């Protein structure tokens, strides 16, 4: 037995990794509150939280930095959980919220609001959410045959996404003068996200993550293959259906708030798998913390590297995520 293997087998080591990811998350949250167009000294952050001394930065901290950080944390966690569930359900390493049509649904719905009704910006999130859910369920319906067949879902998802993608492109052609205002949504960004967005996404995060935790043992059974899972008494079709629904709600709420943010749902689960293995009892919490931490950190980076210009977090995720993904591929870790 290799030493690496022995190390992996030790429960304590995996627990430590989860704690490590949690610490990483807290650190990135602190950095996210600390840095931006205005840098806030740590002492002022502490003062604001403890409520002792009045700080000049109190307003910025409470109304801008803290809610934005929360949105990043929740979106990161939601997308990571959605990705880790979908990869397990579809038995496909490329499955992520894009595959089930969530992103293209939110994309087209969001573009319709932004381009055709730019005077109604508050409609963006609810409409995008509805679009994401409708499209996801259309994909299921098309792929349904005595239960959800993974290959059919992936193919139906790709086809529907291409179809809706052409709708998005058509809107951009007809209203080329209004495209400017949609960029942040199309690549996924967190600028100007505040408490209202936290309120929208929080209930879905809580419910979705609790349901995902309840499904942990079932997801582990599914990993053994459909036949074996069935032989062990699992209701395979029901697990697929219910866990896909959970993933949809998590992804749809995230995407409707930040726009078409890619890669989080893909790289975070893979990275977590690489480090902690496939056991969902460890993989799920690891993905939650890692997803939240990575998104929060990326957003912070996007705010400071080219300040005062703010780079949308989606751009950072793509720029860092894609090379990292290729690195995993070359090392044959996927």
């Amino acid at each position, binding site marked *: *037995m290799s030493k690496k*293997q022995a190390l992996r087998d030790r429960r304590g080591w995996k627990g430590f990794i989860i704690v490590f990811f949690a610490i990483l998350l807290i650190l990135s949250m602190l950095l996210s509150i600390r840095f931006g167009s205005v840098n806030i000294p740590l002492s002022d952050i502490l003062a604001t939280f403890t409520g002792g001394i009045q700080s000049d930065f109190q307003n910025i901290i409470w109304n801008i930095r803290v809610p934005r950080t929360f949105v990043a944390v929740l979106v990161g966690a939601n997308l990571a959980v959605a990705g880790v569930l979908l990869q397990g359900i579809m038995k496909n390493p490329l499955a992520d919220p894009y595959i089930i049509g969530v992103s293209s649904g939110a994309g087209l719905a969001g573009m319709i609001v932004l381009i055709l009704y730019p005077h109604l910006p508050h409609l963006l999130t609810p409409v995008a959410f509805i679009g994401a859910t409708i499209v996801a369920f259309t994909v299921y319906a098309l792929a349904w045959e005595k239960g959800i067949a993974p290959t059919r879902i992936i193919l139906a998802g790709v086809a529907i996404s291409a179809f809706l993608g052409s709708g998005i492109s058509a809107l951009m052609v007809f209203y080329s003068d209004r495209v400017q205002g949609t960029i942040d949504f199309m690549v996924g960004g967190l600028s100007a996200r505040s408490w209202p967005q936290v309120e929208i996404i929080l209930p879905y995060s809580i419910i979705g993550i609790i349901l995902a935790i309840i499904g942990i043992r079932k997801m582990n059974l599914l990993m*053994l*293959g459909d*036949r074996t899972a069935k*032989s*062990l*008494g*699992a209701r395979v079709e029901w697990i697929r259906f219910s866990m896909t629904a959970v993933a949809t709600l998590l992804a749809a709420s995230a995407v409707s708030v930040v726009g078409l943010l890619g890669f989080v749902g893909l790289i975070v689960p893979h990275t977590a798998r690489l480090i902690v293995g496939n056991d969902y009892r460890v993989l799920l919490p690891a993905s939650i913390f890692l997803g939240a931490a990575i998104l929060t950190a990326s957003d912070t980076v996007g705010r400071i590297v080219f300040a005062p210009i703010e780079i949308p977090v989606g751009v950072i995720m793509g720029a860092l995520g894609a090379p990292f993904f290729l690195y995993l591929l070359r090392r044959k870790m996927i």
Partner: protein
Amino acid sequence: MTVLQATSISQSYSNKQVLKKIDLKLNEGRIYSIIGPNGSGKSTLLHALSRQVKPTKGDVYWKEKNLYQLSPKKVAQELALLAQVNDPMDLTVEQLVSYGRTPHKSLLQRLDEKDQEIIDEAIDLTKLNALRKRNVSNLSGGERQRAWIALCLAQQPKVFFLDEPTTYLDISHQLDVLEIVSRLKKTMDVTVVMVLHDLNHAASYSDEVIVVKEGRIYGQGTPKEIMNQKMFKEVFHVQSDIYEDERDGILRIVMKPLINFNDNQSFFKERRASV
């Protein structure tokens, strides 16, 4: 005692009828082999009997209760299936085998000492003691198959279904698997139902053979009752010599194709010569 009974079960997939009104009775504590040519429906029959795929028509009874009306968990406490194809797993042997206890546990229950004993026994029966901490994906094909068998044994099934358990293994590992299975009757009093490709294996390791041809039961009986030249010709389209080995009383079958390829060869030679 009859443990499993199928009454007139049919199975169709998009217009193609794979099983045609099959009646079948399986008795407790016996080893059954299902044999038949490719596409005859033997795996489909195994799946219908093991509650994997509900037949389109007809019923399967588990001790006089309708198998498909029992809860999946209840059934999983009684029946186990070794699937035909098992993906490599990033788990240790011990972890994989411990999943066999799932049907006996509620959602929040943890494994206790009694479960650990059962897991140890399953690992012991499959001779995996030395490998229990090893990762399943690093094992050889035969060892891996034994690990999956141990998973099924930890389930403590009354009936153990095996879908072509020897297909991808080399010969020594094939025999390991069959020896383990044939001992189960003595050690755990399990009824075994397996789909086998090798007819000599079926002859030496089964109490009864179920012959399937084009979705129907061609015959069922002990190897000596059912394995004869007529059956091999009609079902498998081969000529056969069958004799009883006087050392162990087991049938040995030697097979030859029905088509005489030597004739064809000369036919081609003549053609070549004429061209």
